[in-house]
């Protein structure tokens, strides 16, 4: 590893991140199933309200709610969410640090708080809704089917190509045998990218052929899985409740 070029190390990290990010078996399933489209809309709605809020009160209330929700998840899920939250919060705090020296420390707290709440909201959604349910949510929101298929396949290929590039990086590392050769610094990164590109081209052609032989003619059709139920109705009330809290706190402060 010590002698591998920086580019290959970065590629390896990216592909490992992708691999972990799409591991479906880690998804935590709740006792009740709520329409994924509603959950997605709620997250977007919440993030918009967080961005619009002009004072810290609403952000603190949302943060409290999210922490309560987080506490209900499994320890490994909490760990995963926190691991995503910490770097984003730290980075925002560092970026906002000059505001403190310019006499506006409140900005540091409000902006960092907004980022924490937004990342927490998204991470919790990610931890509790499987990727396929999210794509079904897009379908429920009447996004074009071909767009959903493209997203699905992009994730699929990112993972596969991540594996491919990992395998090539490992092969390069093994062949460098621990020796420092200045030529290796430039050549492998270009070589790995080029090979990965060629493999990706072949894979995309073969995948499209695999779809064609199973009757695909340009229109992506799926079966809807979730029907609106009383739990979804209750969830709709959460929208109203959050909106009322937002209006109340914005007026009160």
């Amino acid at each position: 590893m010590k002698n591998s070029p920086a580019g290959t190390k970065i590629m390896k990290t990216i592909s490992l991140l992708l691999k972990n990010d799409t591991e479906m078996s880690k998804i935590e399933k709740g006792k009740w199933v709520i329409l994924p489209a509603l959950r997605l809309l709620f997250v977007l709605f919440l993030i918009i309200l967080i961005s619009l809020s002009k004072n810290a009160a609403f952000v603190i209330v949302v943060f409290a709610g999210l922490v309560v929700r987080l506490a209900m998840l499994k320890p490994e899920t909490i760990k995963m969410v926190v691991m995503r939250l910490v770097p984003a919060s730290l980075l925002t705090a560092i970026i906002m640090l000059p505001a403190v020296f310019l006499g506006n420390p409140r900005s540091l707290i409000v902006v960092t708080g907004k980022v924490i709440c937004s990342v927490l909201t998204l991470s919790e959604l990610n931890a509790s809704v499987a990727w396929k349910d999210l794509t079904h949510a897009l379908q429920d929101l009447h996004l074009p089917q071909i767009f959903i298929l493209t997203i699905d396949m992009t994730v699929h290929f990112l993972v596969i190509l991540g594996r491919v590039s990992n395998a090539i990086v490992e092969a390069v590392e093994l062949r460098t045998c621990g020796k420092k050769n200045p030529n290796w610094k430039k050549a492998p990164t270009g070589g790995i990218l080029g090979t990965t590109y060629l493999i990706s081209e072949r894979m995309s052609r073969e995948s499209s052929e695999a779809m064609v032989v199973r009757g695909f003619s340009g229109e992506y059709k799926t079966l809807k899985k979730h029907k609106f139920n009383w739990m979804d109705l209750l969830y709709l009330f959460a929208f109203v409740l959050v909106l009322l809290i937002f209006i109340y706190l914005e007026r009160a402060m």
Partner: protein
Amino acid sequence: MARMEFKNVSFSYGEFPAVKDFSYSFERGKTYCIEGPNGCGKSSLFRIMTGLSFPDKGQFIFDGEEITEKKMKRREFATSFHQKQGFLFQNSEIQLFTSSVEDEILFGLVNMGLPEEECRERAEKYIHMLRLEHLRERAPFNLSGGEKKRVALASILAMEPDVFILDEPLNGLDEDTQHWITHHIDMIKSPDRLIILAAHDHHFTDKVADIKVRMNKDHRLVEE
């Protein structure tokens, strides 16, 4: 009448020949095994059988009708042609592209335009038959090689085609999965079905094939 017929078919990739003057008839109810060294043109032959490539010379006839590029450009014709066939690719990873195993099996069924209830019934049947219950919600790209092959097989079995084309179905599989695939190929045999497969393993081909078709390094049919 032959289910599939090749009449003096030649096919090449630019200046590289893949199939030369291939003539053969495949009858329904039989299992054929196409044998030959790597690069002899087996996969190219399968591409012609599935309408993904077209002969440079000669004719490929399916159910008495010549399959041409022009005909395959007609959506209805292409869809109806592909519904009669189930093609298992050599690389199962590429064959699987949806976000869950269940969706993968449903993909072909939904494209066939079957009613929702029937799609679900068939998917359940083949998920159960291929013992995929515990993998139903998993993303296909996170499965092992053997599991991917099972999902790919389930996805074509569910379409219940009467022609199966299996390109090296045992490729990269462990012994248990190889036995399992062999068993399932035996299971899908029926008097109405035509099965064509490519393989290198003689034990396997001896077990499953009724007729062996051999191609040589010169991309020609040599013996039956």
